[in-house]
């Protein structure tokens, strides 16, 4: 009898852990969304777009990088702000993935992480992450 009790306790602990993993999974999941969806949700999302040429603005002093990305499908644009040092060869990027959330008051996307894809002749594209 005592043994069965332990099995129940162990099973419950596993179930609890599974629940905890799933819940935190839901919270940590950053879905790929369209620009339109990104601007209407307060949660962490990732957006992908091409860099608008000449839209980059970088201030070395407070290390803030601002740029505009264009969504290929909808031709919508999104202003992105990223705190941190500007990634090298940023201006050559063919596409940029920004992970973060939309700031409704500043009307711009606050990115906490950038994935910069640069044109490369190697298999696929060279991708670098900055956070």
């Amino acid at each position, binding site marked *: 009898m005592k043994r069965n009790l332990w099995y129940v306790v162990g099973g419950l602990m*596993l179930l609890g852990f599974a629940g905890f993993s799933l819940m935190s*999974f839901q919270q940590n*999941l*950053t879905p*790929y969304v369209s620009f339109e969806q990104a601007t209407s949700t307060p949660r962490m999302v990732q957006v992908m777009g091409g860099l608008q040429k000449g839209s980059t603005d970088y201030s070395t002093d407070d290390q803030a990088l601002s740029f505009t990305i264009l969504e290929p499908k909808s031709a919508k644009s999104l202003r992105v702000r990223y705190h941190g040092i500007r990634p090298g*060869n940023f201006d050559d990027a063919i596409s940029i993935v920004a992970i973060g959330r939309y700031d409704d008051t500043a009307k711009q996307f606050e990115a906490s992480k950038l994935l910069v894809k640069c044109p*490369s002749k190697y298999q*696929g594209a060279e991708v670098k*992450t900055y956070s």
Partner: protein
Amino acid sequence: MDALTHLYLPGAVAIWSALIFALAAVWGYSQVLRGDATALAFGRRAYACFAAAIGLTTLMLILVLLMRDFRVEYVFQYSGLDLPGHYQFASFWAGQKGSFLIWLFWGTVLGLFVQRTAGKSEAPVMVIYLATLLGLIFILVRENPFVMLAQSPLDGQGLNPLLQDDWMVIHPPIMFIGYAATAIPFAFAMASLWRRDFNGWAARAFPWALFGFLVLGCAILMGGYWAYKTLGWGGFWGWDPVENASLIPWLCLTVLVHGLHMERTRGRYRRANYVIAASAYLAVLYGTFLTRSGVLADFSVHSFVDLGISGWLIALMGTFVGLSIWLLATRLRQVPTEPNEDPMLSRGTFLVLATIAISVSALVITFGTSAPLLTRLRANPGQVGPEWYNLVNKPIAIVIAVLLTFLPYLTWKGDRFGALLKKMIVPAVAGTLIAVAFVAWKVHDALDIVLVLFAALALATNLHKVIAKWRAGGLRAAGGYLAHAGVGMMLLGILASSAYDESTKLTLEQGKPVVSGGRTFTFLRYLPPSAEERRDRMEIQVTEANGKQFSLFPRMFLNQRTQQLMVNPDIKKSLVSHLYISPLEYDPGRPQLELAKGQEGEVGDLKVKFVGFDLQAAGNALAQMASGETITIGAVLEVTRGGVTSPVKPLYQLNPANGQVTTPNLDLPGGGAIRVTGIDASAGNLRLEVEGLANPAKLAVDVTEKPLIEMVWIGLYLMLTGGAIAMLLRFRDARVLERVAERAALS
């Protein structure tokens, strides 16, 4: 016949013959299973021929790479004239085709030893094992590495600069030995189920499981160390799909090693071991599918594209998943087992709990890595970041640390808690002291304190046991304890270095000291490439609070072929902590100007006007061009500073024989210098560079203090050394058992 002319025939023929010999070996071994014992010799000979053919294929690819025969597409894609000799080997596994070939090569080599250690189960084991190799051969026959280009290019495209590193010459091949090795316990397990011969396989597969654990562990260690030392983002593990693809099989092998240990010593886990052995190999296939098929292209830091082999990879995975499920479903119930009667506080129970904990970790990581696939069904596929993996694996790490703390003193028969505590009093005090030191230092989070306490206890108790074993007669039986002490040490190192590191971003002006965290940082100079150092470096002088001084040399350079900006950190190492400096941005302090004829530009307090070219600056440039001598062109400029305009004429010299360009600096009146950096002949534009003005060179760096990171590496070394000791012991055991069985058969 047209297709044949597009293949490098010696290599292609070697692959095709390998396929034929492999099929012949399968046929030979199957005849043995049908009862024709004489077919064994045929099967072995066919396998030897197959191995020779694979060896030849591999040699052919090495040869065309060494000869830099750019007609072969693979050589063209991954090699180049400027690639130093030993990196030609890195080109071998830089692409998909070559990495499948190296995997197949190691699989074939290991097969020669599997044959010898399989004993009387050789025929069924080799049939299954050859099936795993055939999957790779099919991929290589379709994606032939010996495809030729229609023309013959003069130079290749070069190797990805990230891979031009000594670690990348040895890390991937070792990883593929590990991948190949996971197929061995799989073959033993499946052959045992297939033939319903449930008894001998565990002893034979045990050393191979340890071998896979060891090799894959080494490969993961090297990959982590390479990332830490060269990539510059500061960590050694990023939970990237590619990394997880090797971690999951390794965790499965870890579980298998413990499961087989229990089967060998206690007769437990007899059914579970089949499932675990199968999952280790299937995890390799699944990881290969995830990382090679392009399904994660938008989610990974590493680069993947669909080579058009997704279908093959799915078929390969489907075949082996199907085979495993069928064998398990039809035969697992026939495996005899005994009911679990271990007392709660016993070695058996604790080992079972530990294997469950590691399995849960493997499952959770698999689930997270599959997130983009799982969420594909929804409108917006997503992924989870490193934070999630850290969050869910932390409780598991605590459970494992608790179990490891008591494991060395537990017996199979069961123990009393009081007696147990009495046995471990000395290490318990030592471990607690370590934990107290951590708390006094700066660990204050409750969960972290629990982890630190049990990791320190696990380290202390297991080391205690290692010392006791060593005194009692050598380290032979201490492999497991040594490995577990390593786990404790590694957990301490991981927690301290990743959760309690301190990082600051500094912008350093050349020559101007900046104080941060008690240290003074001065960016001294930029060092151009030299004979000893192939790549540009920055020298940063660091002065410790106690006055000690040293220089660090992080690198930041533009790869000439790809125009990719490359970054390498530099590390000041000591046993207690690492000082890690990674460059982020470099501004050489030399403003650039691009001017059309007649245009004026502004730099600092200077106004520069481009008047025109002077073709008579040093002899007639047109005549020089016609005769092939060095051409000298002058750029006529008007420089205005403080209201004074003066003419200057910097020179641009081109030697047509070797294409070398010389552009000397020309001093400006009032300080600074100007030089021509380029001439855009079609637009008639001139590019200029000005230096020595008020703006000095600036280097932005990320400075991180990583406490106790050395414990991660030392812990891993201990763990792998422990594994190696256990492996040697188990190979000997297996040999002894084989001999006993032979003698029994004779008498």
